[in-house]
């Protein structure tokens, strides 16, 4: 397990190095003045520009520029947003938690809905239930997320008025920011209306999270269905049947775990897709997250924001990948050992 951890960490390190090189190279592709793009100081005068050139080591070799770039990242010195003139680091620290919250909740909904449905479909293979679940999966998969978002707002927010359509909490509540994660902040706050605020936040996150979750959930249904079907065909399930175990025991003790092993890596891969859906959904539901901020920044040609927003989102996706790898290893004893020559 130690070897496995070290391997994952080294993979993480080198991917981060490559990623930083990529974002570093972006500065040469953006139009306009490189210094202004980097610092975001659009109104800088000549003296300030000179100081910036020294700060960013712009006249030195490319290696010291890159080193300076890394040092800046580690010091949280990411420049100013060209649009709002606020430091990027503070913007990201307020916006990223909202996105993490939305994506994690959406992923949880997708998994809780998708995986059991897929298992049920596999167990009742070629029966009516299987067909119904599969039809749902294909229909759900074909919904474009932006259209579904608008549709959901029309029906549940405007017509039925069950859920709010925008933002992450009602404006009535004032929650002091501590961690950035709204739900944790609400629980940490000592406001007398804590639970009302919590309910409001829940009502706000329900629609966007469900919209984001639909497409991944349908993918999970199909993944879970195929992997469970494969597992049910294997000889250890046949052998377990002759042991005299009941069908439910076989499913619980042997089938579910092995089917999860088969699909857990695909869940990690789906996460990058899910982030794309989150970005679009954030725009539709005016969710104060990094995805919406990034899309707005692209519209405003806010190069400082684009550069750093991409870096932060990629790191987040990659951290989730590594995390799913650890879950995979925890479930699968075969993955924990180093497999030279096998």
């Amino acid at each position, binding site marked *: 397990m130690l070897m496995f951890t070290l391997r994952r960490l080294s993979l993480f390190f080198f991917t981060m190095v490559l990623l930083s090189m990529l974002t570093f190279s972006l500065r040469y592709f953006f139009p306009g003045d490189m210094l202004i793009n980097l610092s975001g100081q659009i109104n800088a005068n000549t003296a300030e520009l000179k100081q910036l050139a020294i700060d960013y080591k712009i006249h030195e070799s490319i290696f010291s520029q890159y080193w300076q770039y890394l040092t800046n990242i580690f010091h949280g010195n990411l420049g100013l947003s060209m649009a709002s003139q606020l430091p990027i680091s503070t913007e990201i620290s307020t916006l990223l938690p909202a996105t993490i919250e939305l994506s994690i909740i959406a992923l949880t909904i997708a998994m809780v809905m998708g995986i059991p449905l897929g298992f049920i479909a596999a167990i009742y293979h070629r029966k009516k239930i299987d067909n119904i679940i599969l039809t749902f999966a294909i229909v759900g998969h074909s919904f474009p997320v932006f259209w579904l978002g608008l549709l959901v707002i029309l029906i549940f927010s405007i017509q039925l008025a069950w859920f709010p359509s925008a933002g992450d909490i009602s404006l009535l509540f004032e929650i002091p920011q501590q961690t950035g994660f709204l739900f944790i902040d609400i629980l940490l706050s000592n406001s007398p209306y804590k639970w009302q605020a919590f309910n409001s936040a829940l009502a706000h996150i329900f629609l966007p999270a469900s919209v984001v979750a639909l497409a991944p959930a349908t993918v999970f249904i199909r993944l879970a269905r195929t992997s469970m079907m494969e597992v049910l065909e294997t*000889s250890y399930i046949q052998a377990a049947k*002759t*042991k*005299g*175990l009941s069908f439910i025991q076989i499913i619980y003790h042997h089938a579910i775990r*092995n089917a999860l092993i088969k699909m857990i890596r695909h869940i990690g891969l789906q996460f990058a897709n899910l982030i794309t859906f989150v970005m679009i959904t954030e725009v539709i539901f005016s969710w104060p997250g990094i995805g919406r901020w990034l899309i707005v920044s692209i519209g405003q040609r806010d190069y400082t924001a684009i550069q750093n927003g991409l870096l932060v989102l990629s790191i987040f996706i990659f951290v989730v990948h590594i995390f799913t790898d650890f879950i995979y290893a925890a479930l699968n004893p075969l993955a924990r050992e180093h497999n030279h020559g096998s």
Partner: protein
Amino acid sequence: MNLLDIRNLSIELKTKTGVILAIDRVSLTMKEGEVRGLVGESGSGKSILAQAIMGVLDDRWQVHADRFHWRNIDLLSLTHQQQKDIISQDVAMIFQEPMACLDPSTTVGEQLEEAVPDHQLTGFFWQKNKQRKLAVINLLHKVGIKNHTKCYRSYPHQLTEAFCQRVMIAIALAKKPLLLIADEPTAAMETTNQGQIFRLLASLNQLKNMSILLISHDLENVTHWTNNITVMYSGQFVEAGTTEQIFNTPYHPYTQALLESSPKANIELPPKSRLTTLPGSIPVLQHLPIGCRLGPRCPRAQKICVQAPKTTNYHGHQVNCHYPLKEIY
């Protein structure tokens, strides 16, 4: 007393193009403490027959029988679930490729533990875990695994095939079965390991009076370990008798051909010449011949062989042929 008494068991496979009769009226009896070999080429329906006895075939297969008795209980008069309950209480099965038959993500110990039936444990629920563990260790000792703690914690991929087969036998022994069905237990195993597994099975048979149905394609190897042998070909019953009868005086042309195809029977053949074999190969399920299925390949076949022969019994030596080789001995 007959442990298992099956008369004219037929198994049909329902496919999109129609119903295929995979097993055609096979009879099988097992006595207590008997080791019976079930021999036939691959594709002759041995494993299907074993799975039908265990009742683990899925609903694509349909099983009929004239008689299906387990220790004088008529299983045919019971529901499928009752049949399964009775059978799984007293019959255990081990398979070929034992590593694939153990759950790869669970430790060997856990898999052994869940095989220990609840009624063997006494006392309160907090004592049961300890008893279960003790039972598992005993089982491992019984199959000749001395280092039980290491084996207990191992995952199946960390053990060798022969060790996995021992674990499978231990799992089978957990419910103290009266009959063990061993479906090619030593396929894809080295000869030394094969010998170990067979010796283990033989000792279990002698010490615990456990009957064993040994399924194999290797007639010559099986004869070392069995009292009686049943031969099958392409889903049909061919011949049954004591090992001596089958080995020394085979009445059916197919059994004779099987024996003659072994290198031992061809010891006086000149080097590099071909072994004696029947022409052709075993028919596929979709194109089964009518009557005796050996017909197209049989050296003694005649016109009447397009009708299925009736089983004749010569002092316990049953043969299913119109022209048995009785007169040549």
